[in-house]
Every structure is written in structure tokens, then in C-alpha cells.
């Protein structure tokens, strides 16, 4: 009996020792893993602040040299080293504005079709097809815009616009000039196609979040589909739609490659939307690798900083609005 008990006592002690050891090891790995994940999460914050700090540091020489004038000066002259960001900023704002002007109504109409009119079996395929538009890389839009869309516009839409508005006071300036094919309008159209899927899919999601009871009640009192959308769906979904539009706007503002192909890269503020122009991102993409001199490089980085600040504000506002609607629905 004793012979048997002793070894078993030994193993009991041994196993309790190894048990503590295993537990300690588990505890350590638990703590290590926890801090590993925490570090990764903090890294995201570090990246964002790193971007801001690095850009601000790189932009400092230009901002010091030109001060506030950098924002309102149109001249961009690498030879005399006089730089102003007005033309790129203007181009960025105008192309994005026109793009939203086209994409928002189209996106809302497609979302309306998908949620109210489309037969059930077609909804998923069409929704996926529209989302595939968002998946196509921007360089593809660029090459397509340059070789297909721009020549097409040069032959058809642009001469027509110039003819139509030749004698209309303000519009003649807006649609003035020879049809280059490339230019602000072409860039805006490409941007509109690229932003469309974002506006559509978010609008569809918020339209779908409208309680069916509300819609059924409206149909019940004899409303037409349009009236239901106009007086029930849109007011309910308003905040979400604005959030989606801002998200699309954030994309349009920062879009680089597609615009670089078709904008024409002219550092000029033109009244005509058929004229070539430039945007912040197109300027950086085109000139950065060729920039000689610290001031030139620094001015381009300053442009990047301006772009980042603008998109940050727009995207933050978009997220805030979308969060608000999520809270209401959830």
C-alpha cells in the first residue's frame, strides 16, 4: 500500500507544481497577447498622427516662405520658385462639386429602383454589379477616360455645349473654348462614375432601414410610389443619405489616378469647365518625382497636407452623421 501511495503522492506534488507552471505560462501568454493587440490598436492612431506630423513637417518650408498667400496665389512657377495652391484647390473643389451634382441624383434614383421597384430576384445581381464599379481600380478609369471617354466627348458633347450656350450670357463663359476632350468636365464625369457606387449602396442601405409600416401606411392611403419616396422614405433617410454623399465626396476629393489622366494639368483657374485644369492630387502625382529643390518638394507636400485636412473634415462629418443614424436604427 505504502509502495503504491508514495509514488502517487509524488506525482500529485509534481503535477501540482507543473500545473502552477502551466497556469503561469498561460497567464503570461494571455497578458502578452493582450498587450500585442493593444499595441496594434494604438498603432492605428500612431499612423494617423504620423501622417499629420510628417506632412506638416515637410510642408513647413513652403508655408514659411509663402505664408497664407500660398492658399490664394494662382501662380505655380517651378523656375522662379513661386508657388501658390489656388489652381489645384479650385480644381479639386470644382471637379468634386460637379461630380456630386451628377452622381447624387443618379445614385438616389438607382437606390430608389433597387428598394421600391426592382423585382426581388434582380435586386442582388444589380446591387452587386453596381458595387463592382467601386471595385475597379482608379487607374482603369483613368486609361478608359483618356482613350475612350475624352475623344468621345471631344467629338460629341463638348462642341454641342459650346454651340448651345454661345450666346447665353453667363453660360457662354462656363462652356467656352475649344473642345480639348480632356479637362475639368471630363474629370468630373469620371469622378461621378467612381463615386456613384458609394452613394448608391449607402442610400440603398438607409432606404431599406425605413420601417415597412410607415411605407405601407402611406401606400394604404393611396400614395403613389414617388409620393411615398418623397414624403416618407427621403425624410426618414435624410441624415443617412447626407452621410453617404459626404463619404462619396471624400473619395472624389482625394481621387488621384483617374483624374491625373484626364484633367490636362494646367495650373490655371479657368471659368470654362471645358478647359484643362489641375487638382491637388493630380499635381502631386505628376510633379513629385520630378520636383527639384527643397521649396518645390515642400510646396507639393503642403498641397498634400491641405488635401488631407479637407478630406479629414469631410470624412469625419460623414462618419458622424452615419453614426447618428446607426444609433437611431439600432
Amino acid at each position: 500500500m505504502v509502495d503504491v501511495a508514495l509514488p502517487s503522492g509524488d506525482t500529485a506534488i509534481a503535477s501540482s507544481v507543473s500545473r502552477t507552471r502551466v497556469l503561469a505560462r498561460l497567464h503570461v501568454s494571455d497578458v502578452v497577447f493582450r498587450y500585442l493587440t493593444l499595441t496594434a490598436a494604438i498603432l492605428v492612431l500612431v499612423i494617423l498622427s504620423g501622417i499629420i506630423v510628417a506632412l506638416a513637417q515637410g510642408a513647413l518650408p513652403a508655408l514659411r516662405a509663402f505664408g497664407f498667400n500660398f492658399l490664394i496665389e494662382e501662380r505655380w512657377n517651378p523656375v522662379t520658385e513661386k508657388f501658390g495652391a489656388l489652381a489645384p484647390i479650385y480644381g479639386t473643389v470644382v471637379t468634386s462639386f460637379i461630380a456630386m451634382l451628377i452622381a447624387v441624383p443618379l445614385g438616389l434614383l438607382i437606390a430608389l429602383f433597387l428598394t421600391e421597384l426592382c423585382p426581388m430576384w434582380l435586386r442582388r445581381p444589380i446591387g452587386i454589379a453596381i458595387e463592382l464599379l467601386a471595385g475597379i481600380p482608379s487607374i482603369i478609369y483613368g486609361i478608359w477616360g483618356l482613350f475612350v471617354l475624352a475623344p468621345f466627348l471631344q467629338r460629341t458633347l463638348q462642341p454641342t455645349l459650346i454651340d448651345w450656350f454661345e450666346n447665353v450670357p453667363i453660360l457662354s463663359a462656363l462652356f467656352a473654348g475649344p473642345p480639348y476632350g480632356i479637362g475639368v468636365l471630363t474629370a468630373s464625369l469620371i469622378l461621378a462614375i467612381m463615386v456613384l457606387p458609394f452613394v448608391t449602396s449607402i442610400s440603398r442601405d438607409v432606404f431599406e432601414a425605413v420601417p415597412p409600416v410607415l411605407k405601407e401606411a402611406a401606400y394604404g392611403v393611396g400614395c403613389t410610389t414617388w409620393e411615398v419616396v418623397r414624403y416618407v422614405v427621403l425624410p426618414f433617410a435624410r441624415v443617412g443619405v447626407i452621410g453617404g454623399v459626404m463619404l462619396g465626396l471624400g473619395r472624389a476629393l482625394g481621387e488621384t489616378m483617374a483624374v491625373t489622366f484626364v484633367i490636362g494639368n494646367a495650373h490655371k483657374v479657368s471659368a470654362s469647365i471645358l478647359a484643362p485644369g489641375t487638382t491637388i492630387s493630380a499635381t502631386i502625382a505628376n510633379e513629385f518625382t520630378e520636383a527639384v529643390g527643397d521649396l518645390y518638394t515642400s510646396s507639393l507636400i503642403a498641397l498634400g497636407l491641405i488635401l488631407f485636412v479637407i478630406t479629414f473634415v469631410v470624412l469625419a462629418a460623414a462618419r458622424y452623421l452615419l453614426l447618428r443614424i446607426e444609433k437611431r436604427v439600432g
Partner: protein
Amino acid sequence: MDRYRRRRMQNTMVIGLSIGATVLGLGWLVLILGSLVYHGFGGLSPAVFLEMTPPPGADGGLLNPIIGSLMLTILAVAIGTPVGILAGTYMAEYGKFAKLTVVVRFINDILLSAPSIVVGLFVYEVLVAPIGHFSGWAGGVALSLIVIPVVLRTTEDMLSLVPKELRESASALGLPRVHVIRYVSYRAARAGIITGVLLAIARISGETAPLLFTALNNQFFSSNLNAPISSLPVVIFQFALSPYADWQKLAWIGALIITFAVLALSITARALSASEKSS
């Protein structure tokens, strides 16, 4: 009666417009894919995948940019995926109710749609300017900064979908947290996390802007990550804007390859998450 007719007309008009808008949207997709196939498909041949990029006027292929793109993508995924998954794990598992989680989620959503050219500028400032030359490493890091937000977002979402009863029963067996996460949460969310990685790959395989002044480009075959390296999107950019017809032709072929790779990736990702949902 007049009023009734007007309402009906208005309704018909809006319905017509919305059908028109849908047709237009789908038409664009067809147009773009169609012209890619039209301009690019005829030039697809084994030589495209076996030969280097040519000087203007000579025959050649896209071998070095294809290899370069693959290397950059692998590097970006190797750096970005662990960070994204770990950060997502923190947000969904450890710090679900922490203030940090809310902040990181907000910042991550902004990084998700931040202009990619700004990421390129940042990496240039940090990894190119101090070292003094462009490099494949810098390109990979730039792309990884685009991978992180995508993977983080899907990981967090997918882990949050795992029922908490699963975790609670594992914890009740005495498993430490790290084992609960590894053997229960990760397994339950695996398909979703893989979907996120696939989407991230789809996203970066067409990215050009962050590579322009990090990885730059290379006319010759190079697998040295410490030197400038060629990549498909940058080659397309350079060749498409060149005045040479044969370079432009190669640009179209490259565009066709990228687009169908990206579409295949995103359809696979979609199918994966759909099969997961139904099972």
C-alpha cells in the same frame, strides 16, 4: 381628375428616370469592361507573362511589373494583415467597451477612405527621403498602410458577430482569454477575416498613387526590395501616357489583367462571405 392624372404622370416620370439611371449605371460597367476586353484581349499571349517590358518600338511583355506587383502585394499583406487582425481583436475582444476602441474605430474609418496619394507622401517622408533612395520596401509599407484599415474593419465586424455564449462557455471551461480567442473566436470568424484580407488585396492590386514615389518603377527585372521595383499599375500609368502605340497596347493589356484579377478577388470574397452566412 386632373390632379389624379398629374400625380400619376409625376410618378411614371420618376419611375422612368430611376430605371434610366439604373440602366446608365450598369451601362457604364459594361462599357468599361467592354473597352478593356476590346483593347486588351487581342494582345494577350504567353509573351506578355514571359518577357520584360520593352523599349519603345520593340516587342515585349509585362513580366517584371507582374513579379514586382506580386512581391509588393505579398509584402504589404505580410505587414498589414497581422496588425489589422490584432487591432481588430483588441477592439472586439478585450476593449469592447473601452474609449480607445471608439477612437480607433473612428480614425480607422477615416484612414479607410483617406486619399492614397497622401499615404504615399507620408511614406516618402519617412522611408524614402531619410534613406536617400526609392525602394520596394517603401512601396510595400505604403500599400500595407492601405491594407490595415480594411482588415481591421472586417476583423472587428466579424468577431463582433461571434455569439458571446460561445466565448462564455469556453471561459467556463477554464480557458484563458488568449485560448478563447484563438480556438473559439478566430475559428468562428475565419471565413469573414479571410474575406477581409481578399478585399484588401483587391484594393491594393490596383493602387498606383502610393507607389509613384515610394517603389517608383524599374525598366529591368529586379527582385531586390532595396531598390526601385516595377509594378503593374505604375507601368500602366507610364505606358498609357506615352506617345508610343505599342506601349499603349501593353498598358491596355495590363489594365485588363488587373481588372479581371480584382473582379475575381472581390467575387470570391463575396461568395465566401455569402456561403458562410447561409451555412
